[in-house]
């Protein structure tokens, strides 16, 4: 069924009783051309682009829980392309361009809202560094603006511009095309569009091992039995090490918990995504009115998918230092997601040394914004056996060869990234 204003009208007349399932509840076939492990944003978008761009439709996405139950449904949905390093800059901008046409491409409203992202600068040096970044962005054809203190104040007057501000605001960098999207809708939209192309989306199906023929991987063992595959692509977010080890891969990844927070609903206050340049805190306002925000990792290896109170306090302190006006707002919920942290905070998308096995992982803090480009490029890599040019820098052997992409420049401690 194609969604349209007319279909909403027609279903309204029949009491909303005739909507069809958005995707089939598929049962596994004995074998597929490609199996994608992980039904998050990246797995589902990969399956969609395999079918849409490469005509490969005999594809299954195997998800151990339910679609959208992982980080794609837990993140704070910030989308931007203000990256500094070659390899990242072009890849993330390609992703923003795909976001701009995504609702049309999927016939599903992903509510991509280009409200702009403002990152505050708190010293002259920091504003210089932002100007450097803005220049690199502009040279790559990406929109970027440097704002002085008064311009920041005009756009976001609710930040602390008082004389007593702990870290006074000197200016900011603004990317006007950055924004947010509705995270569940991204998972559902890709799932529905992939299903429309014949992709089987199989939920409650955990991959527990790999089937080999000599050195080649030719299928997976799952909680629903053995399933054969021409190629297997991993897109399991925080669990790449667990599955990689089963396949015999040693990886430069640690799993860490990141938390997100939402407050009680408020009247419209925050029109942009605002990130605090003096600490780790960023905020946007959801359509329901809640302030959605996040900060740093909990900081030690964890698969527990729940966060600790220390970070709640740190993030709240940063929030109030930047926006004193929300000091009395109540926090409704906080939750955590398990993420692959790489030693340079950049992802890994590539064929692996193991025949038949392809890897899409290491997404760290920023994988939601990458969802369309990651799927696009991973599908290309799976279909052709060679990496898409936009992900050439995201190879697994970059750590061995010294070609890391360390945006933060903090060295190889994953939890400091």
């Amino acid at each position, binding site marked *: 069924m194609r969604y349209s204003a007319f279909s909403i009208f027609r279903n309204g007349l029949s009491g909303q009783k005739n909507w069809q399932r958005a995707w089939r509840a598929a049962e596994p076939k004995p074998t597929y051309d490609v199996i994608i492990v992980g039904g998050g944003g990246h797995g589902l978008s990969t399956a969609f682009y395999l079918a849409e761009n490469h005509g490969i439709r005999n594809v299954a996405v195997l998800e151990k829980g339910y679609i959208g139950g992982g980080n794609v449904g837990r993140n704070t949905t910030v989308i931007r392309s203000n990256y500094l390093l070659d390899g990242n800059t072009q890849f993330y901008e390609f992703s923003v361009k795909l976001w701009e046409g995504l609702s049309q491409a999927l016939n599903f409203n992903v509510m991509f809202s280009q409200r702009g992202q403002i990152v505050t600068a708190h010293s002259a040096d920091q504003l210089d560094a932002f100007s450097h970044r803005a220049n690199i962005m502009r040279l790559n054809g990406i929109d970027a603006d440097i704002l002085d203190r008064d311009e920041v104040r005009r756009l976001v007057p609710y930040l602390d511009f008082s004389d007593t501000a702990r870290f006074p605001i000197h200016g900011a960098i603004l990317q006007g095309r950055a924004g947010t999207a509705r995270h569940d809708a991204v998972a559902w939209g890709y799932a529905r569009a992939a299903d429309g192309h014949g992709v089987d989306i199989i939920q409650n199906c955990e991959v527990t091992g790999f089937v080999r023929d000599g050195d080649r991987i030719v299928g997976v063992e799952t909680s629903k039995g053995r399933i054969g595959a021409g190629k297997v692509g991993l897109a399991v977010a925080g669990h790449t090490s667990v599955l990689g080890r089963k396949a015999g891969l040693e990886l430069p990844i*640690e*799993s860490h918990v990141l938390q997100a927070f939402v407050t009680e609903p408020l009247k419209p206050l925050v029109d942009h995504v605002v990130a605090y340049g003096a600490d780790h805190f960023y905020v946007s306002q959801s359509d329901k009115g809640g302030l959605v925000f996040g900060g740093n990792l909990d900081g*030690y*290896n*964890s*698969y527990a998918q729940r966060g*600790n109170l220390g970070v709640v306090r740190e993030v709240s302190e940063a929030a109030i230092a930047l926006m004193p006006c929300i000091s009395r707002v109540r926090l409704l919920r906080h939750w955590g997601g398990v993420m692959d942290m790489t030693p340079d905070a950049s992802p890994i998308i590539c064929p692996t040394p193991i025949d038949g096995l392809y890897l899409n992982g290491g997404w760290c803090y920023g994988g939601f914004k990458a969802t369309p480009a990651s799927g696009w490029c991973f599908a290309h890599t799976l279909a052709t056996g060679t990496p898409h040019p936009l992900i050439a820098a995201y190879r697994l052997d970059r750590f061995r060869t010294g070609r890391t992409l360390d945006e933060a420049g903090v060295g190889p401690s994953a939890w400091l990234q």
Partner: protein
Amino acid sequence: MLRIECPCCGPRDHDEFRYGGDASVARPAHDDPDPEAWYRYVYVRNNPAGPHREFWQHVSGCRQWLIVERDTRNHTIASVGFARKMTRKVPA
């Protein structure tokens, strides 16, 4: 919140500690010319979903480096000891 039983100071909130990562990695000898050994030391991590030996430093207490064995699935701590007594001697 974790509570780490520092062998010097007693049970303390983990906010008093700094994390130091996987304690099972072994530093190659200083003159080891094999880049593969250094690659593994700097980058490769076992990252288990289960028991994990890891370094913590009690920065707001005795400032000792400790080795904590903790289950990464539920944060249960099985043991804590001084790192200097538990790490292998680095070859001279």
